[in-house]
């Protein structure tokens, strides 16, 4: 009788969820509510930039040239300086990538906890959580939170709320710091080792492996496989405007792995040579869709046409309870000016703002349907895409 009862209550809990504000930009009531909340928390509101394509009027579109920190007064009394620095690093793209952002966030929170003192007549477990709320709003304004960051924040809040009230402040702080360290160690570092171990089984000698953009996890796997003397070569596919693949290329070449580099438009040319495709993920959604850097779904599609196996590598802390079927309802719009390019001294789109019927769209994420993905390699093992809700349920039961 125990298990079915629990399942029902779990489902009920997950249905009571509010839609995040950053995907409701077209609703003026929500925008007003957000502005009021930010005013209360003394955080500046970031304004949208440029003409937004009508399909995406429900999302924010910010310019990199106008970071939120310009609107802050110095010194800022509300926001901790390491959070301000982190926000700036996010919005300028200095810290990018799911794992990097989560680790940076956790380190910044560690600093916040170290500098925290409980005010008199307050309990640490409640006050610290309230202190973190404006920081999270601020970071959200700088750049929308990723799924991994969301899960990390949930974990920290839970740990803070579980601090017993009779715990002394120093003890509580050390406990929290060790919790965070353990989270990073378990969910990111050790998970990467476990995933590498499983993935290396899938790499055989003579393989030609295709990777897309820069995924720290996939890079890790390839370097480890190379250490274990597997003979393979890598094809790095890259895309404008971010050109993250160049970073991956540099790191792989430094290790001595033989690499080829192409842009995503040359995919059909290069795929007949490929034996496997390794992709990283930003999040794995509960309906089996893989949310990853824009272009990943294209690679999976063309690989499926050429019958090349597609393997997605993802840690379990990136698993998300959200469901999504297309890349429109929940996405991130990057600075549209990034699409401009100067070739032979001419920038075609230089005055795109002046032309009223011209819009530039710079998407950051897209979703890959599960039928394009053959295998997901996680720290719990190798599972098919559709087993994500099973893993989520197991994790919820553990907690």
């Amino acid at each position, binding site marked *: 009788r125990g298990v079915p009862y629990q399942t029902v209550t779990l489902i009920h809990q997950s249905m009571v969820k509010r839609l995040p504000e950053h995907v409701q930009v077209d609703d003026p009531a929500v925008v007003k509510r957000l502005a009021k909340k930010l005013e209360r928390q003394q955080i500046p509101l970031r304004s949208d930039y440029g003409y937004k*394509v009508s*399909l995406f009027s429900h999302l924010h579109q910010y310019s990199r040239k106008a970071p939120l920190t310009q609107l802050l007064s110095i010194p800022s009394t509300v926001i901790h300086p390491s959070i301000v620095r982190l926000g700036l690093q996010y919005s300028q793209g200095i810290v990018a990538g799911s794992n990097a952002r989560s680790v940076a966030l956790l380190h910044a929170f560690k600093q916040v906890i170290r500098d925290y003192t409980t005010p008199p007549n307050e309990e640490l477990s409640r006050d610290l959580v309230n202190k973190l709320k404006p920081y999270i709003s601020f970071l959200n304004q700088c750049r929308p939170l990723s799924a991994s960051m969301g899960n990390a924040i949930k974990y920290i809040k839970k740990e803070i709320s579980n601090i017993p009230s009779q715990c002394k402040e120093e003890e509580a702080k050390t406990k929290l710091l060790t919790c965070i360290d353990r989270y990073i160690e378990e969910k990111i570092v050790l998970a990467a080792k476990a995933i590498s171990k499983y993935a290396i089984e899938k790499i055989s000698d003579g393989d030609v492996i295709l990777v897309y953009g820069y995924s720290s996890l996939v890079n890790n796997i390839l370097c480890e496989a190379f250490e274990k003397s597997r003979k393979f070569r890598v094809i790095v596919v890259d*895309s*404008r*405007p971010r050109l993250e693949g*160049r970073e991956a*290329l*540099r790191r792989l*070449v430094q290790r001595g792995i*033989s*690499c*080829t*580099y*192409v*842009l*995503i*438009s*040359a*995919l*059909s*040319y*290069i795929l007949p040579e490929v034996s496997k495709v390794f992709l990283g993920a930003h999040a794995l959604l509960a309906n089996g869709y893989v949310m990853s*850097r*824009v*272009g990943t*779904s*294209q690679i999976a*599609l*063309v690989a499926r*046409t050429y019958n090349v196996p597609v393997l997605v590598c993802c840690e379990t802390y990136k698993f998300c309870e959200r469901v999504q079927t*297309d*890349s*429109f309802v929940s996405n991130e719009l990057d600075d549209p000016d990034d*699409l*401009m*390019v100067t*070739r*032979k001294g001419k920038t*075609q*789109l230089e005055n*795109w703002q002046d*032309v009223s*019927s*011209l*819009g*530039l*769209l*710079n*998407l950051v994420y*897209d*979703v890959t349907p599960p039928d394009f993905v053959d295998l997901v390699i996680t720290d719990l093992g190798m599972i098919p895409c559709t087993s994500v809700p099973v893993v989520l349920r197991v994790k919820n039961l553990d907690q």
Partner: protein
Amino acid sequence: MPGADKEADLTERIEAFLADLKRGGCGTGPIRGSGETARETTALLRKVTAQARWSSAGDLMEIIRKEGRRMTAAQPSETTVGNMVLRVLKIIREEYARSRGSSEETDQQESLHKLLTSGGLSDENFRQHYVHLKANVIEAINELLTELEGTTDNIAMQALEHIHSNEVIMTVGRSRTVEAFLKDAARKRKFHVIVAECAPFCQGHEMATNLSKASIETTVIADAAIFAVMSRVNKVIIGTQTVLANGGLRAVNGTHTVALAARHHSTPLIVCAPMFKLSPQFPNEEDTFHKFVSPHEVLPFTEGEILSKVNVHCPVFDYVPPELITLFISNIGGNAPSYIYRLMSELYHPEDHDL
């Protein structure tokens, strides 16, 4: 001597054309569009017909074949040159047959029926001299030139039959034919165009600027977002560099991805290609199909330290198989890819397929 002058002038023209061809299609976006190339080739062939010394149709065909071989060798990827040579050869055959008095039909292709009834190869060596052959051939070439000049307009005129209002149309890179097509439809209907920029040359940017100047709602997306936005697209309209004999395409790189994404979402793929792009070649994947340009477009020299350790590829063309194409729109109307073989047999004679 006037004769020698004219010959020298002719060879000079041909040499200039060949040199231009060698430089022209260098892949950073054609300096001349394929329409212009076709017109210049035909004009040059008309000049050859007018000024070279020949007495019978067979001689003329030999001269044209020789020049044609040189021209195609100068820039093998520019197939319109070869196509025009084949058209002119077909014109010469037709005019010769008409002068001889036999109807065109009997001299058409080898058919099984003909093989059985005539018993042996037809003895056609084009050696007879006809007085009016030269004038007829030049007149027919002039008609061909008029046809070439009107192709873009002919295709653009069909635009309203294919685009309804409030559609979302996707296109890749830059094609003058598609641009004219969309601008013509925009005069009467309101629709939205999404242009994939087509790295590394980013010709999509120019296309988007031109379209938006004609007050068409345009959005530029990166190549990586093609599949992501395809679910909202109603039609995909693209141009191509060449239409191959099996109905497939040799188009700018990235087109195959667009075609696959369109098939996944069951979106019709329409190709706007004038008839002079139809080539009797079949897709031979290995050596002759692909053309590459300098990889510094992909990985610039500023990435110095790793350049020597990395292979970089920058292919220009993509092969799109005929199963992914829904419709061809050409200056003679709309056709399914399965009909291309028939159009080819009307345009070119099978014996000329290998120049």
